[in-house]
């Protein structure tokens, strides 16, 4: 929308009530807002009518919601990051890969306790996903298209941040908003791990700017766990601890 649609003072006054009631189209709505923001005239009557419109719900006798709604809301909120916190960096510096262990982490380490919470979080994952994308438009559109056709979504969580694994048709996607920054020469590597503990590499990611959206190299068939490690190059077997995990069979 490059050309701004402008309204004069008289028209703004004339449609202020309709605007307040949400009864103008998007173009007029934007024009009223722009005009009231910028105009040197007070438009007192228009502002009063707009404010009065916001009180129309008070005309209705209150209706008690069902008793379970509060609990449902609180459960969602506990799992939903606030927009202004998403913008904050997750951690001050890049994640250092652990060099000490020679064995793949999944062969001896118990899965992080976070995994238990993942099953619950997955239930609200789609909602949170749709809501948490506030990055660049094209990325958002691509992400939303993937979400719109998703068959399943799993929350991936850990010290690197929070993201989602999405099964959409025969494609699997990894998506995240605001992953921890990587040091130069580092990459995120994705792993699909089956019930036997065998892990296969499923892709890498180096650009953590904005919304990350990666099509995984294989679908989720047979995998019970999704994990993300930090590596210095793509490897076939990782010895590093995961920085994010998700249970896929939740």
């Amino acid at each position: 929308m490059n050309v701004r649609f402008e309204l004069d003072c008289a028209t703004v006054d004339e449609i202020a009530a309709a605007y307040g009631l949400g009864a103008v189209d998007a173009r007029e709505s934007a024009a009223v807002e722009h005009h009231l923001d910028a105009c040197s005239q007070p438009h007192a009557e228009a502002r009063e009518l707009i404010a009065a419109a916001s009180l129309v719900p008070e005309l209705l006798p209150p209706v008690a919601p069902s008793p379970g709604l509060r609990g449902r809301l609180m459960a969602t909120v506990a799992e939903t990051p606030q927009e202004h916190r998403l913008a904050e960096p997750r951690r001050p510096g890049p994640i250092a890969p652990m060099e000490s262990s020679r064995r793949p982490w999944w062969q001896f380490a118990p899965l992080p306790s976070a995994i238990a919470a993942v099953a619950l979080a997955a239930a609200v994952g789609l909602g949170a996903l749709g809501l948490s994308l506030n990055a660049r438009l094209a990325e958002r559109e691509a992400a939303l298209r993937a979400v719109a056709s998703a068959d399943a979504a799993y929350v991936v969580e850990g010290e690197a941040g929070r993201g989602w694994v999405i099964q959409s048709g025969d494609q699997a996607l990894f998506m995240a908003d605001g992953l921890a920054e990587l040091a130069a020469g580092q990459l995120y590597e994705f792993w699909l791990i089956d019930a036997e503990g065998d892990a296969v590499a499923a892709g890498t990611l180096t650009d953590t700017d904005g919304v990350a959206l990666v099509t995984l190299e294989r679908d989720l068939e047979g995998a019970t766990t999704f994990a993300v490690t930090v590596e210095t190059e793509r490897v076939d077997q990782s010895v590093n601890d995961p920085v994010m995990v998700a249970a896929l069979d939740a």
Partner: protein
Amino acid sequence: MQPTAATVPSLSCVNDDRRADALLADRIRTGDTEALGELYDRYAGTATATALRVVGSRDEAEDVVHDAFVAVWRKIDRFDAERGSLRAWLTTVVRNRGIDRVRARRASIDVADADERSLLRTGPNPTWEAALTRASADDLRSAMAALPDEQRRALELAYFEGYTYREVAELTGVPAGTANGRLRLALGKLRDALTGTTAAPLPVGEATMSEDLSR
């Protein structure tokens, strides 16, 4: 259209109410989920009534209420207590999200970012918060009941059913200017009921409205 001296609302109780909401907003901003719970306890009744009126089914209404509170939680940083009321923002978010659902059913108008629009539309108006705190809900409802049928219908079609004034005009078989004029008259009377002002004719009535306000 100023309230008379006798009807100027007592600002102390109003300020208390606004301050309470502003404090709640501050707590929600810090990530305090209990504060959101308190907001819910205050306004869930009005929010549910609004959603139910818009979407018509109880289950869907509760989904809308749920989503609206989650939106307030997520977007609280955009709320500025100096510029608007938390209550008005919340109920407007409920209304807009409900309308989005109804529109999806009607498969018509494209909706951009309803929550942000809501934030703008609730606007700054402490006087109105003042008036509302003072006026009883009964005053408002009797003002609503006293509206001529065609004005009440226009207001309902616009606010609760999500039609633009041009669509209201088509649905009720009148020119667009007339539908718009009915919305003005209806809101003007509600505003007067809030401030206790006796109804006076608005400067622009139905007869003088231009037929089409688009350019």
